[in-house]
């Protein structure tokens, strides 16, 4: 299992090379049709555009993603349960160090991971997620996110996003040029010398301009969905408890508010479930970053008391009816990894979880917590520092420091 990263890398490299090839062909075609020179100038244009986009993306990095989603960094005292779960899963995944933990003040239950390397990774969860899920369910979700980190999915999906973005922009520019007659300059200059081969190349170039962005997008979405399945399988393996993630996904799919205020198309693949819209059940959606949630649940639930990647892969093939699985062949060793039984521990109820989550947010906003002898915990805004306050339940006076 632990060489999954490497097996993934080989497969990913192939896709990145294929994308690079499409990008190069598109650039060449643009140069051939519209730029007075040879196709090479178009190719150079494509490479420059890609380099600029890549540089901007790389430089802005994770801090932007976290800032855009209005995530707040927490420490252990803010939410001990969440912190402990992340630490547990870091150990289970064998990551070199614990990722930074963030909370997003949003009622929609969701989570995401970011960071190009495990050393600079972060995981963010919404307050809604903390309020909705039990400990075992939260553990499954965190395991899924840490699997993204372990498998270097962030780096890979960012690379693909940049390439798809470049292809889409180039194709759009080229279509514009066709409409506004940008290509005429070239044909008039070399009139007479063309012939059938020239016409054929021109047609091929136009077809490429129309198809390239479509193909690039479909490849991108397929890659994103595959990574989601693999992360689900890894989550089952890390926790040895597929039911945790399955029941978390089930709860999330039942919530009505699933759209996250601070998510966009570029960051969508990193979330636990699609943060942009609810996918319709049964709709085979080719342009989705995430597989249908019901399907993910059914695969996890049909693992039949096992938690290994081989079993996940066969469950995937059985449920989706596809012949080719998602886990690289080198990791379907056929070994049986048994799932553990459900914990018999008493769970915090929803009220307690809401309290824990809101306490974390109060603390992040510098509220002062004053325990009263009657058992009440006063939460005082920072403006009242230095004044004294009576407990609303028993009337005892407290000095706010």
């Amino acid at each position, binding site marked *: *299992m*632990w060489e999954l990263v490497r097996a993934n890398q080989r497969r990913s490299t192939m896709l990145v090379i294929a994308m690079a090839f499409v990008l190069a062909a598109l650039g060449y075609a643009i140069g051939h049709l519209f730029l007075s020179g040879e196709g090479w100038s178009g190719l150079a244009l494509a490479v420059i555009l890609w380099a600029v986009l890549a540089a901007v993306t790389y430089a802005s990095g994770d801090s932007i993603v976290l800032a855009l989603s209005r995530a707040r960094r927490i420490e252990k005292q803010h939410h*001990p*349960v969440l912190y*402990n*779960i992340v*630490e*547990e*899963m870091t*150990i*289970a995944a*064998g990551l070199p160090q614990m990722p930074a933990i963030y909370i997003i003040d949003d009622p929609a239950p969701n989570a995401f991971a970011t960071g190009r390397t495990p050393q600079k990774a972060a995981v963010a969860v919404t307050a809604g997620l903390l309020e909705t899920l039990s400990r075992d369910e939260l553990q499954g979700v965190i395991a899924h996110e840490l699997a993204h980190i372990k498998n270097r999915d962030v780096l890979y999906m960012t690379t693909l996003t940049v390439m798809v973005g470049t292809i889409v922009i180039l194709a759009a520019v080229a279509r514009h040029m066709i409409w506004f007659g940008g290509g005429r300059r070239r044909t008039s200059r070399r009139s007479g010398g063309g012939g059938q081969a020239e016409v054929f190349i021109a047609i091929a170039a136009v077809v490429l301009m129309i198809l390239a962005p479509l193909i690039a997008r479909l490849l991108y979405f397929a890659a994103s969905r595959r990574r989601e399945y693999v992360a689900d399988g890894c989550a089952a393996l*890390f926790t*040895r408890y597929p039911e945790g993630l399955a029941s978390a996904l089930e709860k999330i799919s039942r919530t009505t508010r699933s759209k996250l205020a601070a998510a966009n198309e570029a960051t969508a693949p990193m979330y636990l479930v699609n943060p942009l819209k609810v996918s319709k059940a049964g709709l085979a959606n080719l342009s989705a970053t995430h597989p249908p949630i019901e399907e993910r649940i059914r695969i996890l639930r049909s693992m039949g008391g096992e938690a290994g990647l081989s079993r996940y892969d066969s469950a995937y093939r059985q449920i989706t009816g596809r012949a080719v699985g998602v886990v690289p062949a080198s990791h379907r060793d056929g070994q049986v990894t048994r799932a553990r039984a459900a914990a018999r*521990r*008493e769970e915090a109820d929803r009220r307690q979880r809401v309290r824990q989550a809101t306490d974390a947010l109060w603390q992040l906003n510098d509220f002062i917590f004053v*325990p009263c002898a009657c058992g009440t915990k006063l939460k005082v805004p920072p403006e009242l520092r230095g004044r004294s306050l009576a407990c609303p339940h028993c009337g005892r006076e407290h000095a706010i420091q």
Partner: protein
Amino acid sequence: MIILLVVVIAVLALAILWVAGAYNTLVRTRNDMRNAWSQIDVQLKRRYDLIPNLVETVKGYAKHERETLDAVIRARQQAINVTADDVQQKAAAENMLSQTLRSLFALAESYPDLKANQNYLALQEELTSTENKIGFARQYYNDAVMRLNNKIEMFPSNIIANMFNFSAGQFFEVEEATQREAPKVEF
């Protein structure tokens, strides 16, 4: 003649490269196993540190449960005394400790005041999580041992393993007493 020489040198170079690669993989796997073991150790120590606090807190509410509290303290001392060299003995002592802790938490269920105590709740979360961490560290350690042992036993990496004296790792087994005992049925 020159061609033959080139072929011989090329074959030798490839062989050396392969030996180096196989050796490095073995070392990497063994280091992974050792890291995993130290992770278990860290969590076990953390558990030893938490237990006295827990016992003190429970004492304040459940004075009459001397027996269980003493059992926890004794199991902790026993686990500390076992040196980390013998994986099997260590595992046995730690399992004992886990079980006495579980009975302590079960006992706390019948004291509502204790269950509402913030300090107790925090300690319970810490200890439960530490138990989980021990479990996950053990899971990772055993996976690492399995990978190392497979490499040591399987052809062709076993040749290199024998050459450089790699020894097989020991699994950290959990055999819960409740699993071995026959279920007691009372009428």
